[in-house]
């Protein structure tokens, strides 16, 4: 047993204390970090429940249910924030990334507890690979928030479509890393290349909306 609830409590406790003593954007970003960890915890329950009810094994759950469940669970706090608080789009996009970081962090800690921390190279590849895939998927959603949220018609259809992009990308990652050897390593490296590629175009993708917000 991993006792992931206990791990969650241990990780979240100092963050909750930080929230009490911070204000403004720092407090919001810490909150999103906690919500990301909570999303990871809840995703494990939901994925397990769906897999069990469908009679699927652990591999099928990881490849076919987990991407869908995890991306939807990561999206829920951001959509709630957008619909209820109506924040600036850049704030919501930063929140999306922080949810992804919280999710990836909690996932990596649970992996460490379950598999040990003896192989630094394996952990480097797994740590950066897993974190990057969650951040890349969050970037797809953040792109949707930046470019499509202003239009009511576009935000729903475009948001769904970009969610599908994130889910499929995550699914491909899970397929590749489930394989041993070189294929698994390639799977971990692909998100790193994707994020480098995205970094080149981030300014163009997000600048237009940032300038619109400034006007």
């Amino acid at each position: 047993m991993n006792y992931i609830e206990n791990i969650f409590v241990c990780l979240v406790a100092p963050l909750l204390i930080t929230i009490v003593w911070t204000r403004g954007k720092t407090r919001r970003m810490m909150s999103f970090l906690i919500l990301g960890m909570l999303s990871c915890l809840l995703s494990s329950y939901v994925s397990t429940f769906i897999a069990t009810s469908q009679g699927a094994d652990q591999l099928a759950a990881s490849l076919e249910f987990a991407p869908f469940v995890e991306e939807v669970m990561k999206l829920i706090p951001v959509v709630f924030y957008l619909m209820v608080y109506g924040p600036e789009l850049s704030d919501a996009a930063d929140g999306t990334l922080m949810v992804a970081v919280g999710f990836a962090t909690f996932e990596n800690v649970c992996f460490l507890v379950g598999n040990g921390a003896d192989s630094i190279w394996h952990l480097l590849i797994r740590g950066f690979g897993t974190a990057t895939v969650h951040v890349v998927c969050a970037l797809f959603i953040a792109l949707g928030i930046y470019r499509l949220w202003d239009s009511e018609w576009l935000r729903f259809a475009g948001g769904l479509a970009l969610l599908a992009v994130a889910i499929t990308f995550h699914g491909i990652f899970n397929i590749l890393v489930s394989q041993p050897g070189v294929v698994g390593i390639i799977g971990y490296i692909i998100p790193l290349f994707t994020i480098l590629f995205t970094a080149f175009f981030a300014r163009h993708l997000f600048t237009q909306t940032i300038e619109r917000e400034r006007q």
Partner: protein
Amino acid sequence: MMFLAAFVYFLGDLYWQLYLIFFGETPYYSHIPYLSWYASYLFLILLIVGMRGDSRIKVLHPLMLVIPLFTVGMAIFFMQRGDYISNIICAVIMSILMFRATEGLMMAKKEGLENTRLLYITILALCVTEYASWVFSSFWTEDSISNPYFWADSVLSIIFLLFPFSLRKAVNR
């Protein structure tokens, strides 16, 4: 939008192929590839709305009513072989896509957007070829060149190659 439509379609194909390569079978429980293909059609709808600059429907020719009849009929046919929810979603999205593309084609001359005709024809060709490939895959399953599904898939690849050309023609007014 065109890039995103092609990219997410490619991701869906890639997921399907990787699953087949590494596990020797197509995904059993998952609708992840279907989700990405539906997202591709959604992006094409968004492209059409963006091209026309208006999400409202401006023309309703009686012939256009054939589209929902066709997609609903196809959905009922495929429900005999697959699940209900994904076929309903597919019917709705394809109805909207074919409806908007047909409307755009009919309104192209009136709105002075003749350059966009090729784009709408390409989108409609994509939809028809998709349905053709789905119907062929229901009846022909052998791995041979005589399987019409392979021919439909090849036509689909050519259509995707036509998209950048038709989009460039549409935006160069």
